[in-house]
């Protein structure tokens, strides 16, 4: 009983405190760079799509709102043939960003994405892809990965030795 009375008193004291409300949209709130808003696909420092279509974001998505199909470039590297996020289902949980092994998928501090037509909430790759590196400026997956690409031969990735000649008898 006393605790109820105390609660009433504590609440009553709030008569004299200031409202926390931010008067959006007249007053824009501060959103940190780590805010989980609209999802984008970024590019690596060389300007190529970072996404390698590994499907991990789609697998981890709790509402299954990411669908993509892998395709292969001339040099054998992977990229998504299509990449679709259904934002009318997205809950902005950020698990896709956590799962992404190439920093391709990132959440941004933009949440103003209302539409009058639900169909417009479906973003295809061209809607998602930005011309930038996002939060991770230096990372390029294919420079680290052992896969051979047009610009990088076997043995030229990070921490790799030159290819072995199996026909050599040298130790």
């Amino acid at each position, binding site marked *: 009983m006393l605790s109820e009375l105390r609660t009433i008193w504590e609440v009553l004291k709030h008569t004299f405190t200031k409202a926390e409300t931010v008067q959006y949209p007249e007053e824009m709130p501060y959103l940190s760079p780590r805010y989980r808003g609209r999802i984008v696909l970024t590019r690596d420092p060389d300007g190529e799509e970072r996404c*390698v*279509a*590994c*499907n*991990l974001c*789609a*697998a981890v*998505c709790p*509402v*299954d*709102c*990411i*669908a*993509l*199909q*892998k395709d*292969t470039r*001339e*040099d*054998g*590297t*992977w990229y998504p043939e*299509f990449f*679709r*996020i*259904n934002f*009318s*289902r997205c809950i902005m949980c950020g698990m896709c960003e956590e799962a992404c*092994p*190439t920093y391709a998928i990132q959440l941004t501090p933009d949440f103003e994405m209302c539409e009058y037509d*639900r*169909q417009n*909430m*479906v973003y*295809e790759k061209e809607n998602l892809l930005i011309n930038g590196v996002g939060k991770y400026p230096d990372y390029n*997956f294919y420079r*680290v*990965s*052992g*896969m*051979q690409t047009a610009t990088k031969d*076997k*043995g030229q*990735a*990070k*921490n*790799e*030795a*030159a*290819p*072995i000649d*199996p*026909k*050599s008898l040298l*130790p």
Partner: protein
Amino acid sequence: MPTIYIDDQALEVAQGENILEACLNAGMDLPYFCWHPAMGSIGSCRQCALVQYQNEEDTKGRIVMGCMTPVTEGARFSLSADNAGEFREAVVESLMLNHPHDCPVCGEGGECHLQDMTVMVGHRDRRYTGKKNTHRNQYLGPLIHHEMNRCITCYRCERYYRDYAGGKDLAAQASHDHVYFGRHEEGVLQSEFSGNLVEVCPTGVFTDKPFLKHYSRKWDLQSAPSICSGCAVGCNIAPGERYGRLKRVHNRYNHEVNGYFLCDRGRFGSGYINSDARLDYAGIKKPDGSFMAVHQQQAIDTAVGWIKNKKVAGIGSPRASLEANYLLRELVGAANFVPGFSDREAAILSTIVRTLKTTTAANPSIKQMEAADAILILGEDVTNTAPRVALGLRQSVRNKAFELAAQMGLPQWQDAAVRNLAQDQRSPMIIVSAMDTRLDDVASQCISLPADDIAAFGYGVAKALSGEKMDDEAVNQVADILFAANSPLVISGTSMLHEGIINSAVAVAEQLHTSGKSSMLSLCVAESNSLGLALLVDDGQSDRAASIPKLAKRASKLDAVIILENTLERRGASGEIQQLFDADSKVISMDILENTTLGNSDLVLPAASYAESQGTLVSSEGRAQRYFPVYQPSAERLPSWQWLLKLAAGCECSELAELEYFDQVVAACANSQPALAQLVDVAPLRDYRNQGLKIPRQTHRYSGRTAMNAGVSVHEPQQPKDTQSPLAFSMEGLNRDEPASLIPYVWSPGWNSNQSLQKFQAEVDGPLKGGTSGAHLISSDGLGAVQPQVSVTANLKPHQWHLVPVHRVHGSDEMSINTDEVAELAGRPFIAIGEKLAEKLGVVEGDGLLVTQHKAEFSLEVKILSRVAKNCVGFSAGYSETLELQPGDLVTLVKDESWVYPTPTMIATDRGAAHV
């Protein structure tokens, strides 16, 4: 039954097992890499380490390898001991030293045994700071992608490819940490079973190249239990679909049939299902010969108008399901139904059915064939006509090795030791054929004879077995070898289209049985449902059923003909067939791909492929097995049985019109023939539920459900409902402990790769927990099936040769050839001749030969074989260019001086890029 203790838990284990098998049988998770249930142990990866203690007092113990340690009474082990765990983790850590950072772009990711084991042992952080070894990859053909950097040197690939499948062109090279698994130079892998490398490799060194082109992760594939339609062996497969496209075919374990392995036709030959030549809509032929697309109902109305209360005949198909054939037969009446074989094949098949119903010899499964200790193959290149059987035969010749090992007290799973002990000693396998076969390398004796002589040879062996002394010493020798065996196996088949050969094989098998052997007789047939169709039309009388030419002759008296999934061009008698199309009767055809028969029809109906429909196929073993739709047919395709039901409903065909569910069709079909009565037991009916739930076709991780269709409309469609089978197009349900014929894919917590199969097996390498799928339709009355010898001697003019069909895994099959990769491997049609003849004709391999048969002339590429019977030349059987050449026909050969050497073409592979 020894008792062993693992972490103080007492386990009853089978005598002769090793500890790894014992642990896996007990449901414990002991990591492993190099051990494979079909290939035994070599102890090379050091992953299945556990601690063995001397006795109860011993607290220290010593580390042993589970796969190399046999179980002994009272032995004590610890799986959870700290030092064993650390050891296993250290092994994975060192395996990972050179592992490239490429899981996101690896075709194995998500079903990688290495990923599973790494997680299982708890290895996480890389401590080694040195450089990683790298390797150059090889181009291994259009089927297999090579990425050598990912190798963990478990040697499974080499042991499978060379030791198990008998391949010659893949091996371990170099030494220490330079070990390299590949060919001596880049090139197409020669083995017909190379695709199994994909499943054997515990990581992503060998991956499925066609799958990689339109890759999806395992968890995103929608799968269903299915049966391969590539040949009559009836291997169990698990095709996977995503975005309406059949992405890949994986092996589905069947203890008695295919075990862990498929042939390359089965694994890679389903690409035709995604082909542009698929029919999407029904079409009615316009007067100008082109087709007008019409909707389902319109097509049915048109067809009903043509067939209702009219004189209609039907042509069935050995590549359509038993149910579809049955429905067509009921629709048109048994008297008007033609099974759709060529005349020669129909005669042989009726002999085979009669034989199987009466023979005293057993009709073995592949598992049983692997136990044979002497094999006689009469006139069949098994590797190319029933490939998976040949892989089994390669194992059966090892029975000699196992016998020797048993004498030495060696367990069978001690693979390296057993092979070392036996060296080249094998169980006898005698091949009597007209030409090279792909089993020659493991045969103890190869005898080259023309078709008629093969039959005579077989009868000779049978006589010799009965005690008669034959003139031909080779015959007596073979008879002696078979007589010395306990369970001899005789194999023959329809590929030579020679009834005498089959009968002679039957005679040998029967005589062996009379001699007190548990003899086995396996007769290969051509197509996936040849035997089922033969059973359906078998009325117990030996006389010929209606044949296509007979039907064609009375075509003008008919109002309409319905053709079920059959390309008549492939059934011989081209003149009569043209008569059929030229007659005034309407021709209604349903098929999967565009073909000449469809082009000549008045109404074409788009049929669903095996991956989009359900049905029953009867393998050459007499095993009826059900395949289920992997996904819903797109556009206006329908399974043939549904087309036929709709036609029957339109015609108010009283009995058929009541059928609505597939199960009802199966029941009606089973009732129609005593031989088909077992059909209802083939697979559970549609009301089967596993713990109250349907079996899910999708994995529990199936992704993108709310986005995959959002590109078309954001309003999500309902999941398709499957009212016809116990499976669901959904991730809801229970994929565990279901009957074997309903397992759509294998997965178990912590085991994402196909190694999770062991969680579905009742015991390691044993049958599945849900039993064995399929039901045997044919039971023999054991009265004996010997046919008298009919001696034939052909009169050859000078410069005339007998044509012998040469079958190819890639190329001879009608459907799989429409897959780009298979077409590339099939190459061009050819004429196969011996070295001497080549010399005489002045041609070398790759030259052209003019082959003249009657009046027709063909210009074909020359292939030179090492072993060819007298007066025989081979031709590429089943290739569309050589369909008119018939086995046994006489031809003349002349060098084609105007032969144009075709430039090598790369159809399916982007050789420059895809293999790097």
